[in-house]
């Protein structure tokens, strides 16, 4: 147990370091970019109506003060961490004066739910079917899954998303193709709202599942067809160990280990995939928010989305990491 404690402690320190460096990198990238949030905001305001030069100058002063852009970079950096510790990243520009953090927190549950559900379905279905396909190599139905997986696997997220959009939005319009829930349903913990959310999540989730399935399926099939030739599987078969025990405790259990490593490495990729998928389906998650923020030059919001994403992905990988010694006893021995 103490060895597990140290394992967790080491990983936790690593997690903090990853978040620190990731967020710092985002800070410097946004602050070193030539786009000034103050000028962008002023430009937009000045476009909408005519102001006197004095009024614009006043506004510039207020905004500069608000964002602190006149101070040295290092001081801005320190202030940034101080404010972040209090959960404040300044007001968003595109939705002024709503705090950027508030917008992010509104979008976060949508993305997390979409990601968790689609990743779980993809991971479980891909690995289970892949394992069966690797074990029963002559089964026709499982071979057919292999063909489907090979076809789907190389298609990019946005192509699958658009194909689904066209199929179910125009050719056979049975599913909602835009938004997180229907306009005529009030948000809340009601059955109507839940149902609407579920319906709206189908297409984005399916597009993520379809793309991810192939990778897990093909990976698992290859792993299992290797593991079944291992001596310990042959030996268990010779000893007449129950088929289900061999399949679960010997074959899948061993083939799972690299797949869990894959899952940890995959979480970041899937997250960037959701950015595109959310945009295609106009889903109210972090991805859509990030793209709006980038186009609006809203760098408080970009920073907020990045910070939360880095933290969320970091924590997800951390959790997978903690599971690792439980599935591979040899890891504990380090």
């Amino acid at each position, binding site marked *: 147990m103490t060895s597990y404690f140290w394992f967790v402690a080491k990983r936790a320190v690593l997690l903090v370091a990853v978040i620190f460096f990731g967020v710092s990198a985002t800070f410097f990238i946004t602050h070193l970019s030539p786009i000034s949030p103050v000028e962008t905001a002023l430009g937009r305001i000045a476009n909408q109506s005519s102001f006197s030069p004095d009024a614009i100058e006043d506004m510039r002063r207020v905004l500069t003060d608000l964002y602190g852009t006149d101070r040295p970079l290092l001081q801005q950096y320190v202030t940034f961490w101080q404010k972040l510790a209090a959960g404040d990243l300044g007001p968003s520009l595109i939705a002024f004066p709503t705090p950027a953090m508030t917008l992010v927190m509104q979008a976060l549950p949508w993305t997390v739910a979409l990601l968790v559900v689609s990743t779980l379905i993809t991971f479980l279905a891909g690995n289970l079917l892949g394992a069966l396909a690797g074990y029963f190599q002559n089964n026709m139905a499982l071979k057919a899954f292999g063909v489907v997986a090979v076809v789907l696997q190389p298609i990019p997220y946005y192509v699958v998303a658009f194909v689904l959009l066209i199929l179910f939005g125009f050719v056979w319009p049975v599913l909602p193709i835009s938004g997180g829930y229907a306009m005529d349903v009030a948000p809340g913990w009601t059955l109507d709202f839940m149902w609407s959310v579920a319906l709206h999540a189908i297409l984005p989730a399916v597009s993520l599942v379809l793309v991810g399935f192939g990778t897990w399926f093909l990976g698992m099939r290859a792993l299992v067809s290797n593991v079944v030739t291992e001596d310990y599987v042959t030996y268990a078969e010779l000893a007449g160990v129950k088929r289900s025990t061999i399949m679960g405790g010997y074959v899948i*259990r061993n083939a799972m280990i690299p797949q869990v490593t894959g899952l940890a490495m995959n979480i970041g990729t899937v997250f960037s995939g959701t950015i595109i998928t959310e945009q295609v389906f106009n889903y109210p998650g972090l991805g859509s928010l990030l793209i709006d923020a980038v186009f609006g030059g809203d760098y408080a919001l970009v920073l907020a989305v990045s910070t939360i994403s880095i933290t969320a992905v970091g924590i997800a990988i951390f959790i997978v990491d903690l599971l690792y010694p439980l599935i591979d006893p040899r890891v504990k021995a380090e």
Partner: protein
Amino acid sequence: MTDEILRVDGLKAYYQMHYFGVQREVRAVDDVTMSIGRNEVYGIAGESSSGKTSFIKVLAAAVRPPLRVVSGSVNYDFRSGPINVAAATAAEVERVRWKSLSYIMQGSMSVLNPVRRIGQTFHDFAFRPLGLPREAFDRRVLDHLARLKLPADILRAYPHELSGGMRQRVTIGLATICHPEFIIADEPTTALDLVVQKEVLHLIRDIQAEMGASVVFVTHDMSVHANVTDRIGIFYAGRLVEEGPTRKMFFAPRHPYTAHLVASLPRIGDTAQRPSLDGRPPNLAAPPDGCRFHPRCPLAVDKCRIDVPPLVEVAPGQRSACWRWQDVQPLDRSVALAHGAVT
């Protein structure tokens, strides 16, 4: 042999493969007839690709394509009833597996599931065949571990936490816990150092003597045969070329191949180079006509190139498949003595 537990008759097992419509056939086991007695330790020797592994796969009822039993029978006479594993259904074989017929596999490093505790593996392997209630089963496992001189807490260990010798003893424990009547041991000592080898060999012998099981012991290491086996069968190119009591095989081999095998053994203090045979074992996809050993045999005559020599009794209990068995030179006794084939 008065009381036989295994009788193999005219066994032919070939690897049959199809490559782009062309059929290829490798005659790994070609017309083998032999028998093994109850409580006997029978050694199988031969170089790589001599067919000994394929042969014991048939004995263990572990034949998988492309290997196929073409003809012949492998009859066991177990207490639970006779069974011909060359023709039995999977369900019939399943009934004798581990209870009557068990297997010690080659390569102790990789035969244990790395993510399962030893105790769990014992449960997987032996719980069903033993058919004991959980408590009695646990006691049986503990008793058995004590017999193998393994500490009880290894049941909670994973294979990577054990040494190579311990792992091999665990494998032997797995194979013997159900008190099988017939144990096939495939190179059980090959990857171990000499001290552990000796330990493991004694363990197998002791357990065999205690439980009264027959053991087929496969190894290419002739000194292991000298120490452990009662009788030896020599395989060459898919055929049983000579068989007989271990002592006779060392002191009076009646097949030139056996004579060379024994003569190649090193001896302490003797610095003379050991003779080695020219050539290599024949390609079993296109074996030579006549005696398969003739291209490498120093005694070969024309007859050997045309006619297959039958396995005939040349001395009490000793059979040789050689036309010129009478001309085979008995070898230097000291080599055999040095390897433990005591007079």
